């Protein structure tokens, strides 16, 4: 009789472990939504699925690392490696940068009233220019860092533009105004440590252009960029739909 209890007890314990595991996942997911962590969790779930070339550490751009993949989902605020490398750099003279850049191709411009203006950089603009539809958040809505900032539909592809900061939307613009969102901070001031600035921007943008070109190079041929240039005004019209989808994924960090 004892052996029966051991045998059956063992397997019903296993069954209980399976059920508890699934229930725990449900409860934790519910907690994420309740604590407004869902967007951060979505980005955390998305980040490892991006191609390795999209996940390089910002310190590769400045030559501080030869190869390094970011393991913090582009949130440098808590990254000790980033803090150590920045501390090693000589203090930057002059005024604070006019614009900061997010890896999802948005820029952030601090305004004197404590708000920030958010727009698309030239590469982002050339991809998302003249959208078929634009879905901007309403004033008063909250956006979360690396959560969806706004959406643009272009050539049948819904582009999700990542929010570069946590904040509350105070106004919305559009492509014709040169900016898309005005945000005010949620708790006093904006934290900008995770955004690219100064000497990081130019090599990052050059690399992005190189990626853009490489993504479209034909089979067995290295990407070439003979003498530089600016992206054409509307890249979507110049390439096939398949390439367009892949390109948007690469540039706007879509999973």
């Amino acid at each position, binding site marked *: 009789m004892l052996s029966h209890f051991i045998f059956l007890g063992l397997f019903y314990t296993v069954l209980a472990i*399976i059920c508890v595991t699934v229930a725990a996942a449900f409860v934790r997911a519910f907690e994420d939504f309740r604590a407004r962590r*869902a967007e951060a969790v*979505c980005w955390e*779930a998305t980040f490892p699925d991006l191609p390795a070339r999209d996940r390089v550490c910002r310190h590769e751009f400045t030559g501080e690392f030869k190869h390094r993949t970011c393991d913090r989902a582009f949130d440098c605020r808590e990254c000790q490696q980033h803090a150590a490398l920045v501390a090693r750099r000589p203090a930057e003279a002059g005024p604070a940068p006019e614009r900061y850049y997010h890896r999802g191709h948005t820029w952030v411009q601090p305004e004197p009233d404590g708000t920030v203006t958010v727009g698309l950089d030239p590469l982002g603009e050339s991809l998302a220019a003249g959208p078929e539809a634009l879905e901007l958040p309403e004033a008063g809505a909250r956006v979360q860092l690396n959560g969806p900032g706004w959406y643009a539909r272009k050539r049948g592809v819904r582009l999700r533009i990542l929010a570069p900061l946590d904040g509350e939307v105070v106004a919305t613009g559009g492509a014709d105004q040169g900016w898309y969102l005005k945000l005010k901070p949620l708790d006093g001031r904006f934290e900008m440590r995770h955004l690219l600035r100064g000497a990081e921007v130019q090599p990052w943008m050059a690399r992005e252009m190189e990626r853009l070109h490489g993504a479209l*190079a034909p*089979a067995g041929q290295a990407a070439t960029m003979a003498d530089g240039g600016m*992206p054409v005004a509307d890249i979507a019209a110049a390439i096939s739909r398949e390439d367009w989808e892949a390109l948007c994924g690469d540039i706007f960090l879509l*999973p």
Partner: protein
Amino acid sequence: MDSQLMPRGVRRCSLPQFLLWIVPWCALLVFGLYGAGLCLVKGLNQTNMDNRFAFGLWIFLDLTVIALGAGAFFTGFLLYILKKKELKAVINSAVVIGFICYSGAVAALLVDVGQPLRFWFTFWHPNVHSMLTEVTFCITCYLTVLFIEYVPIVLKNRKLRQIPSFLVFEFELHKLMPVLAGVGTFLSFFHQGSLGGLYGVLRGRPFAFRDGFAIWPSTFFLFILSAAAAGPCFILLTTWAVSKISGRQLVRPGVLPLLGRISGILLVPYILLKSVDTLVWIDHTAPARGFAAHQFYAWKPFGEWMLFAEILIFGLLPALILLGRRFRERTGLLIPAAVLVCLGIAMNRFVLTVQTLALPTLPFDGFMTYLPSWQETATFLAVVAYGVLLYSLSFRYLVLFPQEKDLPQPRPAHERERAILEPVC
């Protein structure tokens, strides 16, 4: 047309091409379901099995696919418990293969056992003296685990992941995956073993009966080891075959040799133990039951060649290839070695299922022959078709090989570089 459902950054064949691929398999599945339906409605008289030849093609299929599907638990164990990160490249594919193998085996068992509406009897009135009860419990639990492991892969589909609650649930479930990997390993260990033990305890079948350790006959341990050795090889083979069929590079060059090496490392002790077990059986177990081992091989076509082929050609030879670094890094040797391992496992399960039952054990018994009926064969083929279809759909619409989009892929020759830059001045 369905490109919005495919993973971003990977290319798949056109929808008409894909339909052309799946239509024959769908036809085979329908044909097989018809055969299975006949067996369920009219009974096992539709098969060529009888009270004496009670295990046939279906049990052979079950044992083989369960062994080949062991790659799921073993890869999960290596990745989540032993932290062998390189195997992340194939874990999704391994889970899908495992799910296909186990669900296919359960479906075949439902037809074989019959009365599927009474499936719950085995849980409510378990015969705790039967190894099959343990097998039933373990396989059911493990299929549930595989289903739960399959869910996050499905939820990461490009369309489904746009629903935040799905993605958040997937993320939280994925964090708990080591628990499921541990449970899967525990369950697999016991049901693989019990499937082997099932034959080892057949005292009335001296060809299969084995001595062992405590309550477990040696076949218990041999089944666990052989399944763990064959599982990675089957993943290796499917990855290679899918890569060839799709024309895509799916994993980095070192991944397939690594799977081969894992398989080789496990195959060597298996072959060693199998050889020792065979010698003990020849020298001690079979004579103790009143048989000389050579008597079992007097019935053609089941001659001694089967024993030698199983141990040497399908065991030792691939083990040596997979263990030798220079050998396994050559695809021309790695793939045939993996094929041999998988064939060897199938042969081992065939011997224990069909040869065991075919051999006479009593003086008035004769050598029995068995040829599956078309209904049995159709059901077998339905499981194969189901596997191909589910894997094809998963490969097309889910991320089975995360490294694929990071690897250089051939682009169609007709595509040419387009002007995306314009001069500054």
